[in-house]
């Protein structure tokens, strides 16, 4: 059992959790993820690590309520426990001095991006941060990102805060000398940014979290096609070269269980015990 030490609602439907787990905290690196299960009958869901505190013995994840399990997780409170927590899984992000690193994050994934941005900052890079959300009220981790970025740009889909969309990045990428791009967020965002950097040959790393089951390279549920080759996001990634990922396939695979997910969500809380 793993205890929730801290729970904080960042914006409606997005919560930050700190789980007490000394072993995972000691080993967690930016870019890695954990898989958790709330109870015996629970679904296993992967969540990217957004921080680790070795002293406190905790790891941080930020989770958006998008389905049954995430809603159930959001219903838990501090001092509540979850059944399982496995991690850290996946290869850590490559952190070293590259020069100028552009860190692009969207939605709930701005939180794990912050974990990486902080590491790049410490490794003496000039960090340019781009964070975005659908709308102003959904933006998270702005202040945290400002602390670790040399420059920070904000964007929203509807233009309620900062730039509207990510098209402004085209000019930024064209005009500035950028050595590496880190992209964490919705698939469409990672795909778009990868297309922006492709003509300039800037290494662009995307962090992929497809549907996962075991997270240890056994089940194959998380397979992604990179340069025409099948890779497992859980053990070969989650970081991949954004210029080589088949994003269309990834998009379709992510929605393979959409009807099941919806059914689980609708029926959640309506089982016979509650009637």
């Amino acid at each position, binding site marked *: 059992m793993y205890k929730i030490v801290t729970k904080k609602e960042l914006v409606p439907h997005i919560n930050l959790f700190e789980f007490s787990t000394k072993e995972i905290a000691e080993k967690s690196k930016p870019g890695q993820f954990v898989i958790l299960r709330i109870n015996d009958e629970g679904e296993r869901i992967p969540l990217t690590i957004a921080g680790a505190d070795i002293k406190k013995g905790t790891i941080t994840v930020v989770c958006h309520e998008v389905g049954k399990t995430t809603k159930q997780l959001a219903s838990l409170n501090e001092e509540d426990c979850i059944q399982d927590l496995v991690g850290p899984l996946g290869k850590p992000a490559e952190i070293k001095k590259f020069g100028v690193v552009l860190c692009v994050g969207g939605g709930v994934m701005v939180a794990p991006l912050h974990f990486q941005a902080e590491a790049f900052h410490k490794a003496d890079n000039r960090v340019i941060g781009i964070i975005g959300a659908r709308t102003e009220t959904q933006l998270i981790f702005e202040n945290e990102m400002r602390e670790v970025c040399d420059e920070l740009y904000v964007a929203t889909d509807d233009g309620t805060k900062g730039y509207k969309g990510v098209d402004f990045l085209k000019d930024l990428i064209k005009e500035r000398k950028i050595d590496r791009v880190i992209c964490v967020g919705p698939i469409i965002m990672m795909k778009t940014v990868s297309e922006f950097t492709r003509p300039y040959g800037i290494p662009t790393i995307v962090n992929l979290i497809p549907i996962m089951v075991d997270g240890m390279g056994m089940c194959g549920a998380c397979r992604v096609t990179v340069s025409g080759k099948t890779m497992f996001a859980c053990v070969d990634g989650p970081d991949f070269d954004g210029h080589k990922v088949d994003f269309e396939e990834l998009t379709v695979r992510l929605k393979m269980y959409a009807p099941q997910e919806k059914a689980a969500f609708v029926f959640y809380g*309506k089982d016979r015990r509650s009637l």
Partner: protein
Amino acid sequence: METSEKEPRIGVFVCHCGFNIGRVVDVPEIVEYARTLPNVVCAQENLYMCSSAGLNIIKDFIRKCDLNRIVVASCTPATHEPLFRKACEEAGINKYLFEMVNIREQCSWVHMDQPKEATEKAKDLVRMAVAKASYLEPQVEPELKIKPSALVIGGGITGMTAAISLARQGFGVHLVEKEAELGGMLGRLYKLRPTERDASEILRESVIAVKACSNIHLHMSTLVEEVKGFIGNFDITLQGKGSNEPEHINVGTIIVATGAEELKPVGMYGYMENENVITQLELEQRLKKVELKNPKRVVMIQCVGAREKTGRTYCSRICCMVALNNALLLKKMYPNVEISILYRDIQTYGEYEDFYREARENFIDFIHYDQDKPPTVNSNDGKLVVTVYDINLGGEIEIDSDLIVLSTPLVQHEDGRKLSSILKVPLGPDGFFFEAHPKLRPVDFSSDGIYVCGTAHGPKDVTESLAQACAAASRASIPMAVGEIKATAVKASVDKEMCVGCDACVISCIFNAIEASPFGQPNIVDANCKGCGVCAAECPMGAMQLKHFKDKQIVAAIEALLKPKKLTSSDERFEPIILCFACQWCSYGAADLAGVTRIQYPPNVRILRVPCSGRVDVLHVAEAFLNGADGVIITGCLIGDCHYTDGNVKAKDRVYVMKKSLSALAINPERIEIGFASSSEGQKFGTMITDFVEKIRNIGPNPLRVKKRSD
């Protein structure tokens, strides 16, 4: 002030339809009952509600009682909804504030000997409609201007014919051809039967006609690179080969006439290894250039790489004629040549049978081979030997040959595949462009304003290709001639606050009506939305809704049906209450036909009309069962016949998933079912309902329908 914000004031108008309804259903009782329902201000009856007297009653009461919602209980909306909607509009009520109940096709005509049950059912249907009506919202139908110009992609005979047809009607046409010359496949053929005219001669006439049309703009050696927009206003980016600057044009409609290419059967029968193993097209080119050296023994093999058991399973339709044509031409040019055609089936449909007869008369030899024992070709000292098992002979024969001609199918080319993703229109399992409906919309794509013709759509001969070219031009000219279209207001809409940016809607929409923004916010392109509601059913959060068929409207009807149906104890006499979702196209039509043909089925089922079975949300089914429905049947068009391409397949997938979820509610998964019927299958619809009611009767009441002491 918006009508939807006002307190609903509903008027219910019940029709006798002469004797049609009134003989079975107790209309006065329905009227009395309607008056007791929430928000109902008045209820009236008339012998014929659709007569001008009936319509005037509706209009009078709208004014007299200050009504803002109208429910008419009469016949089928398929025929009469427009009439009643018009009456509403004339009396100042938005037509989307009208709801129709079908108590003729669904009550009096199908339960002729059960007047009590038919009346009870009619009451339920009216109650459901009144509940939905309370939540109806006024809508504005968008108007789209259509630019009077078209893009025709492909400068072969098909594309040229379509372009000429449109240009002569006065529309501007941009004709794009990837090669430097017009003509496409026809430019490579030799002589056409039955006239034996040179293909190039036929072509020349069309090329001259194209060039004579001042409103056809030719774009040679050019590819379509990008297409944005929608019917009436497509933004096209063209890229000329060898040109750096792309060209931008703007058109109202698009016709795809990109043709097909002949399969090159590499690795089969020694093709590419021996220069005397060639395809039919290569033979025609040799004949055209008079390159053939007095052949003595020619063997043609049919169905090479076609009608396979997997992969290219289709018949290419033209190869039998092509082979016969070329064999006869060879005979004419080289009277001493011996020709054998190795076939699986000779499929010379229609008048083409004459070719076959002529070939027989000219002593062309036909050998029937078996797909499982195909012929083999061996090369011996440069001489070719064909070995074939002749089914009719029951034995193997060997033929020495100096020329082997392989009849291979037409296949989609790489540029066609690319174009499919640029236009976002589908390819079928054969790789050819896939029309909106195989029978009803043979040259339309399901995306409005884009049409297909010729071999891009599948193998066909010149005549058929040209007929399709004219059809596509005609279809494209309709919106351009009218100049604007009024679209339905039944379209998707998203609640930005509830949306979580998961993009399930974006992926579920096959009409490109929902665009993803970088951080997940979906943007609805109204002009592309067809109103199927699949996205709304896929949205996990209920943020995506379909106007006029919103969750709250559907759930209101479901609750209204089931709330009064609770059983007081489990030993009360059990009559199943079954909710049937019917798509507005086929299955609702089938239910109508069951009525028209007086098919009798049990009166336990209540039909709720939805635009597509794909609109039915897990939520709706869950609400039905939680409120006590004994069974739920979702009905849609036959698989392959969906008016939104595959909404019914999505519904089927959901039913499969829901069966599993129902177990968690301690509800027998057999209580949910999906059925398909075309609008011509009234009998099937009746049988489907009868069987399902019987099944549910045997299963017994939904445990959640029985009132608990606490209720």
